[in-house]
C-alpha cells in the first residue's frame, strides 16, 4: 500500500506523517492522530458529524482526502477549547443552553457554528438554521442548538 507524506497544521500542532493515499482526513484525524472528536456518522458527506475547519472553512473530513489537506490549517473540536484551554463561547453556550443531548453530532455542529460566527458574528436565527442544515441532530429538534449559537453570537459581540 503506497503511503504519501502529509504535512499540515492540526490545532496549532505541526503534523508530518506518512499515510496511505486513500485515507481521508477523517481517517488521519481519528486513527493516526487519535483526535476522535470528529465522528463518522455516515461516511458519505450527509450527516455532518465529521465536520472540521480547513483554513477556516467547514469541510466534511470523511469526503476530504488527507492528501487534499496538505499544507492546510485544520481545526478540530479538540482545538476549539478544552483541557488546558479556555472554552470557546460556543462550547460554553452549548453547555449552558442544554444544546447537548447524546453529543455525537456536537463536535461537527460546533465547528460549523464556529465558521458561521467567524464570518458572521451577528447571525440571525434564520442564518443559523440554514448554516447548520448540513449537520443532522436526532436528539434535540435543533431548538436549543439554535438558541446556544445565537447566545454565543451575542456574547462575541460584546
Amino acid at each position, binding site marked *: 500500500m503506497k503511503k*504519501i507524506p502529509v504535512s499540515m497544521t492540526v490545532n496549532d500542532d505541526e503534523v508530518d506523517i506518512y499515510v496511505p493515499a*486513500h485515507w*481521508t482526513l477523517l481517517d488521519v484525524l481519528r486513527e493516526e492522530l487519535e483526535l476522535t472528536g470528529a465522528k463518522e456518522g455516515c461516511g458519505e*458527506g450527509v450527516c455532518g458529524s465529521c465536520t472540521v475547519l480547513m483554513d477556516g472553512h*467547514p469541510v466534511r473530513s470523511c469526503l476530504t482526502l488527507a*492528501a*487534499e489537506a496538505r499544507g492546510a490549517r485544520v481545526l478540530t473540536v479538540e482545538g476549539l477549547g478544552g483541557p488546558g484551554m479556555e472554552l470557546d463561547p460556543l462550547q460554553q453556550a452549548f453547555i449552558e443552553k442544554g444544546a447537548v443531548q447524546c453529543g455525537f453530532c456536537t463536535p461537527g455542529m460546533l465547528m460549523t457554528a464556529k*465558521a458561521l460566527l467567524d464570518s458572521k458574528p451577528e447571525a440571525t436565527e434564520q442564518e443559523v438554521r440554514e448554516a447548520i442544515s448540513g449537520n443532522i441532530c436526532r436528539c434535540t429538534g435543533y431548538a436549543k442548538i439554535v438558541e446556544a449559537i445565537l447566545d454565543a453570537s451575542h456574547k462575541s459581540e460584546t
Partner: protein
Amino acid sequence: MRLPAFEYLEPRDRQEALDYLARYSENASILAGGSDLLVRMKQRLVRTSYVISLKHLKDLDGIRPDEDGRLCLGSNTPLVSIIRSPLLQGAYRGLTDAIRRIGAPPIQHYRGTIGGNLCLETRCLYYNQSAFWRSGRPRCQKDGGEICYAEENSDRCRSANVSDGACALMALDAEIVLESREGERSLPIEEFFTGKGESPFARSPDELVTTIRLPAPETAFGSSFRKLTYRSAIDFALVSASAGVKVEAGRIARARIAVGGAGAAPLLLREASEKLLGKSPEDGDAVAETAAQAGRHAAAFMVDNLGATLEYRQKMAAVLVRKAVQEALARAENGNARGRRER
C-alpha cells in the same frame, strides 16, 4: 466507510494534468471537490487506479469576461465563489439560485466546484447503493451489466441527471470548453451531454473540462431555477427546472427551458420553449401551456428511481417549469426597467 486504494496525483499545472489524463485515460478519475466521486468510490461504483486532484490548478479558478463579453467560469471555481461573484448577478441568477441549492450549502460549497457539479454522475436509487446492497444479483447497465432495475426491460440505463448547476447552465445556453493534450474544443452544453445514462458526458477520458462559458450578459434577460426536494438542504432534486428568457419590445424573444431529474441529461425543452416566443410576458395562458407541454415531455423521460412517486415527480415537472418561467420573466422585466433607468 473506507476508500479503495489508489494512487493520488497532484498536477502542478494544467499541462501536467493533461499529461496525466493522456497517460492514464480510463484508469484515472478527476477529483474536483469529491462529494460525488469519493462516495461512489466508497460504494465501489468507481474502480480507479489514479485520482487526479485539481487542487493546484489555480488558473482554472476564477470568473472572467472574455474579449466578447462572454463570462468564463474556470471549472475549478468553488461553488462559494459562484454564489458571491458580483459578475453573476442579474441575468445569471438562475445559476446562483441553483448553486445555492446544492447539498448542504455552508459546507459543501467550499470544496465543491462548478466543474465538479457539471460532471455530477447521473443517479438512480438502484445504482447509488453500497457494494453489498448491489451484491447477489446481476449488475445493472450503469454498473457495467445488462439489466435495468428501475424500469423493467429497459434497453438502456435510466439514471437521471440531478445536477442543479447543469440544469441552470442548460437554460443559460452555456458552452463547455474541453482541453486535452491534443488541443481544445468547445461544445454547446446540450452536446456536452450524451443522453446516455451509462456514459452521460461527451468528455473523452483524456479531456478536462476547463471552462464554462456563458453568453454575454444582456438587459431584459432573466433566468431562474426551481428544485423539488423533501428537505431544504442536502437532498438531490426529485425534479428541477430552469428557465432563461429574453424580452424585447414587450414580447418574449428567446426562451430556454431545462428540466433536471428526468433524463440522463438536463432536458432542453425546445418545443415548449418555442411556445413562449412572441407572447407577452404577462400572458398567463401561454406560460401555462408551455409548462404543461414541458411537463409532458419531461414526464416521458422519467422512471421511478429517485424517491417520491413517479406520478408526483411527473406532475411537479410542469409546476416547477411554470414557476421558473414566471420568475425568469419577472426578472427579465425588472432588468428591463432597470435598463431603462440606466439609460
